[in-house]
């Protein structure tokens, strides 16, 4: 395996959880809901995925458990903000805190146990292709899911009637409601999709990235995913670009450090954030297009009049 190929693989592993979590949050925000609980849902997914994989010995079951855990946890957020109409920002933050605490409690007995690793694909001939073989045909299943997810979300949002409805709800919930769209139901579904994605991202962490469980192992990745959604101006392919750019600069700066090029490591560590912000701001320069893609009702509470 050449160095270039190895770097590509490392970048993909680093970018995948960000991509999946951000893609879920994109759908949530497109429906007009701001869920700041991504970090909390992600860590719940991580602990559920690790735990179930540990108990059953199957990484796949762990992955499904993580998706369910993320979705179930997001329902709590949905109930509070959509049915009880609490403040979305405060509720989202609370969800993150709750997730970090609850996962630590659930995972207490998992600490110090080596986890179950999700196996990578191995297709004869194709995986062995030079340079791109392993990247295209030799990765873990969650990587392929993340790419399919990006394609699926794009198609859903911009090519289906349901996607149009979801965007309408996010742009103007009053009008959508007047047209007979079940606003709250659409948002519930979106929030659960977001939760499922965050859970899956968590499973990638505890089953692929670093197969182990430790408290707070997401280390802020949920927040990075949240920021990606905004900087990508709510567009799926830009999230993919942003996530991979972030991953590439993160890995690149580590390699630069190992080569000993002598730039202060504190600066190098902040580079991924800087680079991602700068690039995504630059590609979002078109004001009209950005406005068009911003869900206008984002974060606003909706109480259906009767």
């Amino acid at each position, binding site marked *: 395996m050449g160095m270039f190929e190895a770097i590509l693989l490392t970048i993909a592993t680093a970018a995948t959880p960000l991509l999946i979590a951000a893609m879920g949050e994109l759908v949530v925000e497109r429906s007009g809901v701001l869920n700041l609980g991504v970090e909390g849902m992600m860590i719940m997914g991580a602990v559920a995925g690790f735990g179930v994989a540990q108990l059953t010995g199957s990484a796949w079951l762990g992955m499904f458990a993580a998706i369910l855990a993320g979705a179930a946890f997001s329902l709590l957020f949905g109930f509070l903000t959509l049915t009880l109409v609490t403040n979305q920002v405060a509720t989202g933050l609370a969800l993150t805190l709750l997730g970090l605490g609850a996962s630590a409690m659930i995972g207490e007995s998992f600490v110090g146990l080596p986890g179950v690793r999700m196996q990578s694909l191995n297709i004869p001939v194709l995986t062995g292709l030079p340079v791109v073989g392993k990247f295209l045909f030799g990765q873990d299943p969650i990587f392929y899911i993340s790419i399919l997810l990006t394609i699926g979300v794009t198609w859903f949002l911009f090519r289906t009637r349901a996607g149009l409805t979801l965007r309408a709800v996010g742009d103007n919930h009053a009008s959508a409601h007047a047209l007979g769209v079940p606003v709250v139901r659409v948002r519930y579904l979106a929030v659960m999709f977001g939760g499922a994605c965050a859970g899956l991202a968590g499973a990638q962490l505890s089953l692929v990235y670093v*197969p182990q469980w430790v408290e707070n192992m997401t280390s802020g990745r949920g927040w990075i995913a949240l920021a990606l959604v905004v900087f990508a101006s709510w567009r799926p392919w830009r999230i993919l670009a942003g996530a991979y750019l972030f991953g590439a600069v993160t890995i690149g700066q580590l390699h630069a450090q190992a080569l000993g090029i002598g730039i202060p490591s504190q600066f190098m560590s902040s580079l991924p954030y800087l680079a991602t912000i700068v690039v995504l701001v630059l590609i979002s320069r078109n004001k009209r297009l950005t406005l068009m893609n911003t869900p206008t009702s984002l974060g606003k509470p909706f109480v259906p009049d009767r």
Partner: protein
Amino acid sequence: MKKLLMALSMAASFAVAGAAHAEEKLKVGFIYIGPPGDFGWTYQHDQGRKEMEKALGDKVETTFLESVPEGADAERSIERLARAGNKLIFTTSFGYMDATIKVAQKFPNVKFEHATGYKTADNVAVYNSRFYEGRYVQGVIAAKMSKVGVAGYIGSFPIPEVVQGINSFMLGAQSVNPNFKVKVIWANAWFDPGKEADAAKALVDQGVDIITQHTDSTAPMQVAAERKIKAFGQASDMIKFGPETQLTAIVDNWGPYYIERAKAVIDGTWKTHNVFHGMHENLVVMAPYTNMPDDVKKLAEETQAKITSGELKPFTGPVKKQDGSEWLKAGETADDKTILGMNFYVAGVDDKLPQ
């Protein structure tokens, strides 16, 4: 939830103590920076607490507060432990230093023990660990085991404690192979499993065949296992994460010190001090030497024995700094003040120290 339970049990035990009174148990409190489940720094302190409970049985009663931030909360938490009747309180992170001193002034009858700091008082002692002694042994092993002659070192933050480790590792390695190289990556985090794994992968991709870390998670060990190279564990024995990978690990063994100090309070012989303990005092312990040929194992054991007996001090001249200037003359050893404030590399480290 756990904290709530702890607070309740503390309140309950306080009430019981007030009522019964006659019981002569020494109450010992601990303040932790992280959760005991971090499998690293705090985990080892908690192991020490448990050892103390085991050794002293019903003569002591321990309580801990976990994940206490190093700010205003620290002072409040330490004071809470003092008010709850704890007569000996261990504050186990550098950043608790000022809070410990402050609370100690209010409670002159309570003894305080602060880890890794430098401020003492009549009722505040300081204890520090010479982790770097273990790094020297690791360096010796690395130079023997590495085929390419380059090791990867994952650092957390460029503070003296970590720089000591890198230099000591380098000197140990150079004692075997003068041309040995170390590649350093700073993760700029104590704990971020993902990033630590990325750093480990980057080092492996650049050709190192041995990894050592000064960050807290087991992620680098896992990467090393996956890539079939060798690695050293950190803070606790990580052999479970790399049964065919771990060469040894530096284990922080706080138990004996905690037992000794609790006994001193019980016997009334406790005095303040500022100690810098290492292998000699059994504070720095090496996990079993595994996955290496017998001759390397023998050399490692000999090195460890020499450091333990004091015959070998890792920072002994002749040593040049990275810029080529002389640091220690032949036979000269570094004093503790220089070691505790170390902010430069020795010659041979392939990295520029971030200032």
